[in-house]
């Protein structure tokens, strides 16, 4: 069954749904409809897409996306790719864990890296980064620390542990603090391109 047929099948089963083919995938325009579509695809006797192989976050600057790859183990077909788009300001997507149990860790990963909030997820925590990490490192606007320049937090930590800190580093950290900045790695103009 090709994408066109699957699209018309979903549209027939769920009247009022808006789908749009994007490349080899189906974009569900209203993110709230995702669980209904997934439940239909899973329970339909012909398609029987019973295996959610991956949940991927993606950042396209204008919007964030979550991409789902569905396979059918029973029919040995797949993948069928679904997409959901959300804005950067409110990246809320209904969770697929009630339908596919295996989505749990994958959604946690997408949350950890892209900051997509999966509503109704039973345990939405960071999975790779530690508790207390700030920001979502795979987003395109993530600001990575400059690992060569010590900041005041580092200096205080080193003082507490009795390590000697050179005066130059102290001064740099104090300057940064006075400017209210943190040491962020930025691209200089020079690059090999």
């Amino acid at each position: 069954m090709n994408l066109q047929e699957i699209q018309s099948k979903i549209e027939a089963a769920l009247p009022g749904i808006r789908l749009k083919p994007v490349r080899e995938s189906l974009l569900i325009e209203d993110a709230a409809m995702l669980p209904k579509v997934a439940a239909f695809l899973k329970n339909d006797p012909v398609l029987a897409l019973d295996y959610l192989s991956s949940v991927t976050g993606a950042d396209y600057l204008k919007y964030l996306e979550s991409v789902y790859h569905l396979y059918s183990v029973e029919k040995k077909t797949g993948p069928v790719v679904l997409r959901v788009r959300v804005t950067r300001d409110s990246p809320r997507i209904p969770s697929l864990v009630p339908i596919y149990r295996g989505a749990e860790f994958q959604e946690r990963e997408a949350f950890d890296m892209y900051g997509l909030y999966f509503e109704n997820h039973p345990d939405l925590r960071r999975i790779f980064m530690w508790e207390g990490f700030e920001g979502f490192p795979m987003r395109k606007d993530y600001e990575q620390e400059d690992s060569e320049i010590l900041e005041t937090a580092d200096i205080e930590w080193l003082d507490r542990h009795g390590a000697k800190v050179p005066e130059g580093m102290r001064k740099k950290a104090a300057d940064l603090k006075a400017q209210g900045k943190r040491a962020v790695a930025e691209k200089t103009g020079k690059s090999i391109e």
Partner: protein
Amino acid sequence: MAFSKNQSEVDEGLKGELAKKGVVVTTINQLYNWGRQSSIWPMQFGLACCAIEMIATACARYDIARFGAELFRPSPRQSDLMIVAGTVTKKMAPQVVRLYNQMAEPKYVITMGACSIAGGPFIDGYNVLRGIDRYIPIDVHLPGCPPRPEALLYGLMELQKKIQSQEIETTEWYQKGMKREYPVPDFGPHGLVPKFNPEVWQPRELDHRKDKYGEPILIGRKTKAPDLDAPLATPPVAQPPKPQTA
């Protein structure tokens, strides 16, 4: 690394002559160091792909047992050598430092592979430590991605040379009050706190990588993204060459 080799003052020729008669002339230092260098027990832990090479080195083909270092111990209390084989992620780095602190003196560290030396192919990453030498002192750096088992054996031999050059009276771990422990970094909001321990490592004044290539290329805000709604650019179809008419 420059070694001052422990040389005995007895003439080598005389030593050979005596050895033929069954008399061995040596010094306590040499005997002692020979014993230590021939039974280095490495710690059994690997962090990434380099660990596979380390395992190969320990197996039959390369056989690290020839150098007396075959007894991989699963406990830091029983090991002399830590081979940091693989990528040290920021999440793993505190554990590596803690393991180092738990090792008994004398202790040695080999960094194996580009990753543990400087971050390797992942140097631009938000999650990889740019070299474990930011927190603990290293004895032998072993470049490669991964270094071949021969390279690891070479590194081990270099370490043996270093051990051979040490003297019992002056080595630091027999001095009173010696405590070689380094503070274990904490997890911070953007990475590890501190970013490095300036007692162990400091950024270079001249950074040729920066001069030559600019700031590491992949970090910083990104401003480009593909447009999915635009039609795919189809590559031009190669035309079969026209048959040549004579």
